[in-house]
């Protein structure tokens, strides 16, 4: 109020400071990102030609369908898991999709568990959660309940790192990752150190690690590798640039491969790339091209499974023996 009154009285220092603050503000990463987002508003969204009509299959050991960004449909035998569903045209009103979702939520007859990694708009989308079939369980990180509207889930379960949810043979464990939380900017002071998590899913001898969004933290991931025998790691690989700004909260492809090694997973599927405007990577495929080149160099290309948006892949065959008459 005081500054407004001073400004109204025409103090030149006030206006000079305001102009300088605006100039500095306009050169900040968030301001530049907003400018980039504005440039893209009219751009067409790339359609996904082939979408699975029946994404949930009768028989599989472990399969994944990448719907874009951090949205992955995971099926282990008869159980269906969905991570960070995002089916809307933007995330947070501003970050527009490059490519449409590779999965029609209306085609999902059921989802047993919908896992939310953190509060950010591209991972916790109210509109997308409304598109999912009712029922199922919604694991969320500690602190996210205060942001969760009435939703048609059977159960909403807040989970602290290393806390597990066990039911019907499924065990889901929240695991620590390195990120930050808060959704509206104002809430960062009290949500900075909570409200984000990774998950490990265990069912019928299959184990999947979902990193959500994370920066690189060797102790966390090596610890996960010691505690679990991970078959598949779903790891983010973008945004990369500007690196100094992104480093704490977002791994680049080389760091993602280090996590892959730390958690000692058999296979890796990259995600959190190629879908939304995020950061200042020069092209949508910048991160995945780096990942493929690095995986090739390290001789692990066959274990790094790069999916197209909408592509489904069976990672492991079912081991369940069905009796001849049944």
């Amino acid at each position, binding site marked *: 109020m005081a500054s407004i009154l001073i400004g109204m009285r025409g103090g030149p220092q006030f206006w000079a400071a305001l102009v300088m603050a605006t100039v500095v503000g306009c050169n900040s990463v968030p301001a530049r990102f907003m400018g980039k987002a504005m440039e893209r508003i009219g751009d067409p969204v790339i359609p996904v030609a082939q979408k699975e009509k029946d994404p949930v299959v009768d028989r599989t050991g472990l399969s994944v369908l990448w719907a874009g960004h951090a949205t992955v449909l995971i099926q282990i035998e008869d159980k269906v898991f969905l991570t960070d569903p995002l089916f809307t045209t933007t995330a947070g009103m501003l970050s527009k999709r490059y490519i449409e979702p590779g999965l029609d939520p209306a085609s999902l007859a059921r989802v047993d568990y919908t896992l939310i990694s953190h509060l950010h708009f591209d991972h916790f989308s109210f*509109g997308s959660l409304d598109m999912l079939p009712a029922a199922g369980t919604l694991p969320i990180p500690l602190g996210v309940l205060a942001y*969760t*509207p009435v939703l048609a889930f059977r159960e909403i379960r807040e989970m602290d790192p290393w806390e597990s949810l066990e039911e019907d043979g499924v065990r889901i464990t929240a695991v620590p990752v390195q990120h930050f939380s808060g959704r509206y900017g104002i809430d960062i002071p009290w949500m900075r150190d909570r409200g984000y998590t990774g998950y490990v899913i265990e069912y019928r001898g299959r184990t999947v690690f979902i990193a959500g969004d994370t920066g690189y933290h060797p102790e966390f991931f090596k610890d996960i590798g010691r505690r679990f025998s991970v078959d598949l790691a779903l790891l983010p690989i973008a945004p990369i640039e500007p690196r100094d700004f992104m480093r704490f909260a977002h791994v680049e492809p080389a760091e993602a491969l280090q996590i892959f090694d730390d958690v000692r997973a058999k296979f890796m599927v990259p995600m959190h790339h190629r879908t939304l405007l995020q950061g200042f990577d020069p092209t949508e495929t910048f991160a995945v091209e780096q990942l493929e080149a690095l995986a090739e160099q390290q001789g692990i290309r066959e274990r790094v499974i790069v999916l197209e948006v909408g592509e489904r892949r069976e990672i492991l065959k079912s081991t369940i023996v069905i009796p001849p008459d049944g």
Partner: protein
Amino acid sequence: MTKAPTIIAVLVIVAVAGGQAHAQAPQNSDKLSTWLPYQAIPSLTYYSGAPNSAFGFEWELAPVLYSFGMNRQISPWYFFIVEPPGRFTGSIELNLAVQTFMRKVGSSYFGFSGTVMGFVPLIERGEHLTLNLGVSLYRVGGTTPVFGVVGVSTLFGMVHLNLKHSPPDNIWITSLEWRVF
């Protein structure tokens, strides 16, 4: 008019106490220290009525809000510190406001109001757009008119555009409100 600073001081003290009671440890101090300075940011208001019209600033507080849009595992009641989803996912609130105008409205530069406001989520559970409907009682220009209120809020419930009309007095008030918490 000399009572205005006292009223504001009392409201702030009550807000602090209410906010502390509502916020959960260990987030209390962070929440409160973020909330307090934001309350100083004024909203813009334009009063249009006889004998004159005036542009002004407005400061609002929400002593109590009942949210019907949030999950049932948390309390639906908010006192002063209202996190944005509590309001925009569907709620009804009592808010109190003080206005200061750039020129005299009737006999005074100041106004006070109490509003019962409902927020109906329209898009993305209200995060993108809500419909605002309410009733306001003002004390302004030596009169006490009652207003019907209609408006929308957007940008995560932080920007509200409300139109208020008092038919008997033919007064219109347009408010562009910045509602953080």
